[in-house]
């Protein structure tokens, strides 16, 4: 008989070009709430997917109550009593809450669905969770917090004994988070064991008895929450010396290049103002849902804004679409490089020249020779690990794909470069190379805005840091005076209005 309800040993998971988990171990005691922490890309999400049967590990074993288990798919994990709560993936937007909870295991009598019984049972779950909506509500009309409750109700209905939550408080207001804490404790009191991933220390202090840290796809250690300090935890999460990682050159910072004033887009961000200067790297940070990506998408013209102004080199500009943005000298490295940044089916050469195809040719015709020369030049400039410019973009590793997107941006004549999570999903080696490139670009006089959720990256590379929380700018710090706790404080500073909810 094992003292652990869930145990994993030596789990290794490999994706093309990336080792997501490297001989990772983990133990979950029965009835405990266990926090899983680590930087982005440390391997937490992948680990969860292995536990829930979505991914199959190449090496390692998993034990449930001491018995070895081998899940062939998510269904097996569900049957074994493991439930995971993500943010939206498993919701049926067109169907009601009841249907979402019971899909696949409806209550039937002789083949006929018992709607009344199901609705009532669903309502009882919702009541336990203090939900403010009924089971007959349409899933697609609910807020993120409410959808999360439905997911939890689903887990309860399936009598899950191990419940895993992935960033549960990321999109919640303070009150909603408080509710979630109560629910989680209730679940534990009901006999379940909980694992949750979070970036927030307060989640951990409030709920967890133990915390496990992953770093760079490896298991670092498990600690008692009572016995560890923030500093120790951060050290475990970050590990390496910050100064080595971030080759930020000393750059003479020039005049203001881009300024946004009181940008507002209903439902996404409000009164956002900041500016960035020549040669400066502005770090834009905050938690998930802060509105950073939405803001830069608006600056780049992918989305519109309801009010506010933008100035380039002092002159007011309007950007209605990316074509406008590029023409004025603003470039963007999108957050999702596979769907927004690259055409995976194409060769890297064609990807790089796509934006400037018109200027590379003459009279409307494409000039293959000029294209190839340009593509070669830029691909070499960012030091891509590829053999020819005809290699398919899909065949490159995450880091190299990102470099291709950078090369694509450099093809245009720009003044401002916005990078949205430039090192997300990129291995350590390529990360360093991307930082090098950023430093070079700053030296060359570009004004750079970098969005990042990784604290060390923000601290290491930015000249100035702007912090957003739930659509508002909540703080601004200079390079010298910034520290992780400061930033976190701003990142969680909900507006008085929202806190009232």
């Amino acid at each position, binding site marked *: 008989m094992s003292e652990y309800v869930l145990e994993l040993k030596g789990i290794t998971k490999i994706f093309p070009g990336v080792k997501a988990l490297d001989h990772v171990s983990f133990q979950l005691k029965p009835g405990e709430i266990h926090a899983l922490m680590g930087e982005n890309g440390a391997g937490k999400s992948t680990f969860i997917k292995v536990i829930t049967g979505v991914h199959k590990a190449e090496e390692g074993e998993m034990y449930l109550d001491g018995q070895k288990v081998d899940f062939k798919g*998510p*269904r097996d994990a569900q049957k074994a009593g493991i439930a995971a709560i993500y943010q939206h*993936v*498993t*919701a*049926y*937007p*067109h*169907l009601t809450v009841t*249907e979402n909870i019971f*899909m*696949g295991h*409806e209550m*039937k009598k002789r*083949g*006929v*669905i018992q*709607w009344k019984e199901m609705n009532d049972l669903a309502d009882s779950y919702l009541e336990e969770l203090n939900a*403010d*909506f*009924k089971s*007959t*509500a*349409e899933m697609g*009309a*609910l*807020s993120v*917090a*409410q959808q999360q409750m439905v997911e939890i109700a689903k887990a309860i209905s399936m009598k899950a004994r191990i419940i895993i939550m992935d960033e549960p408080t990321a999109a919640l207001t303070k*009150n*909603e988070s408080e*509710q979630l804490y109560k629910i989680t404790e209730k679940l534990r009191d009901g006999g379940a064991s909980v694992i949750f991933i979070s970036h927030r220390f307060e989640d951990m202090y409030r709920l967890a008895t133990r915390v496990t840290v992953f770093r760079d796809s490896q298991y670092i250690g498990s600690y008692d929450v009572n016995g560890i300090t923030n500093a120790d935890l951060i050290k475990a999460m970050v590990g390496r010396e910050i100064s080595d990682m971030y080759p930020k050159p000393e750059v003479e910072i020039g005049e203001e290049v881009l300024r946004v004033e009181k940008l507002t887009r*209903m*439902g*996404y*961000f*409000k009164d956002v103002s900041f500016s960035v200067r020549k040669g400066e790297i502005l770090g834009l940070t905050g938690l998930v849902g802060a509105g950073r990506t939405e803001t830069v998408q608006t600056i780049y013209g992918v989305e519109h804004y309801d009010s506010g102004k933008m100035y380039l080199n002092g002159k007011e500009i309007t950007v209605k679409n990316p074509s406008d943005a590029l023409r004025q000298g603003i470039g963007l490295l999108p957050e999702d490089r596979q769907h927004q940044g690259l055409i995976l089916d194409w060769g890297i050469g064609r990807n790089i020249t796509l934006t400037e195809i018109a200027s590379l040719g003459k009279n409307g015709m494409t000039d293959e020779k000029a294209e190839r020369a340009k593509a070669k030049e830029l691909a070499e400039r960012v030091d891509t690990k590829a053999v020819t410019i005809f290699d398919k973009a899909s065949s490159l590793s995450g880091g190299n794909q990102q470099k291709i997107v950078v090369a694509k941006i450099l093809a245009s004549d720009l003044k401002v470069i916005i990078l949205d999570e430039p090192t997300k999903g990129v291995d350590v080696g390529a990360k360093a190379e991307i930082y090098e490139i950023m430093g070079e670009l700053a030296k060359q006089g570009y004004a750079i805005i970098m969005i990042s959720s990784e604290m060390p990256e923000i601290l290491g590379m930015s000249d100035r840091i702007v912090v957003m929380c*739930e*659509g*508002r700018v909540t703080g601004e710090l200079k390079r010298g005076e910034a520290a992780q706790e400061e930033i976190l404080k701003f990142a969680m500073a909900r*507006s008085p*209005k*929202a806190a009232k*909810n």
Partner: protein
Amino acid sequence: MEKKKFDWKKITGSREMSLVIVLIVLCVFVQIRNSSFLTGETLEDMFRNYAVIFILALGMMCVLLTGGIDISIGSTLAFSGMAAGLVMRDYMIPTPVSFLLSMAIGAGLGLVIGVVITKGKVPPIVCTLGFMNIYRGLTYLIAKSQWVAAYQFTDSFKNFALTKYLGFGIVNNMIAVTIYCYIIFFVVMKWTTVGRRVYAVGSNAEAAAVSGININHVKMGVYTLMGFLCGLGGSLWTSLYKSAQGDMATGIEMDVIAACVVGGVSLTGGRGSVVGVFLGSLTIAIIGKALPLIGVSQFWQSAIKGLIILVAVVLNVLAQRTMDKNNLKRREM
């Protein structure tokens, strides 16, 4: 915490409600212009003539719910109806056998389509485009470019469309069959897991797969069902028109899809109801029947139908945009 208003339920419910209101207004308008519209005789005539569309729309709803489409239904109907008709001509089979035959053939044709879409991974629009041609060509070929004429059908078969024995003596057979179909579908879609799975696959296929639902089976099922109903439609059609012609039911797919779209079935899957489909088919039927009665030349029918489809889908989009905008407003910043 802020209470989410539940007028969403009322709005989706009211999509059907607003359609009902529009229909009522339409009927009143027509009745005023031509008082013979809302008579038993006219209405029975209308339902009898449009029964096939009502029934096919149910099948199309299921296909659309899964996010697919089937534009081959006219050809499937023609082939099954023609095949059964030929057998009747040559072997004088009894009416029930004829019906069973056409339904079986239709189901088989639908199954083939389902397999090509799921296993062959051909997009539904291309697949049904191709089979539309194939089945239509085959229809002409088996008929050897001839008709099956009225005198070649059995009397009992021809009488099917005129008598009322399936409707307990009250309602015409065609209408009775339609009613039975609607009752069955209403029950199955709402009260059985089979029905829920169809919705699940269309709403979020990924989640459905994780829930253990076999997506391919569901899809093959809806196309087979569609074919089955086309087969039923084939017999109904030939009975009604007392003949089997190679070009029968050409273009019917447009009416059926229009009925579904107007009835609120989403083309991307996951949304739609039997009630909505009924109302949509009713709309198509009323337009077809009513327009000539108020002096609108039959030649304007298509144009009006096309316009209605376009207006219906655009209004849908506008309604969705308003809902989304309202959702955003609630997010306090």
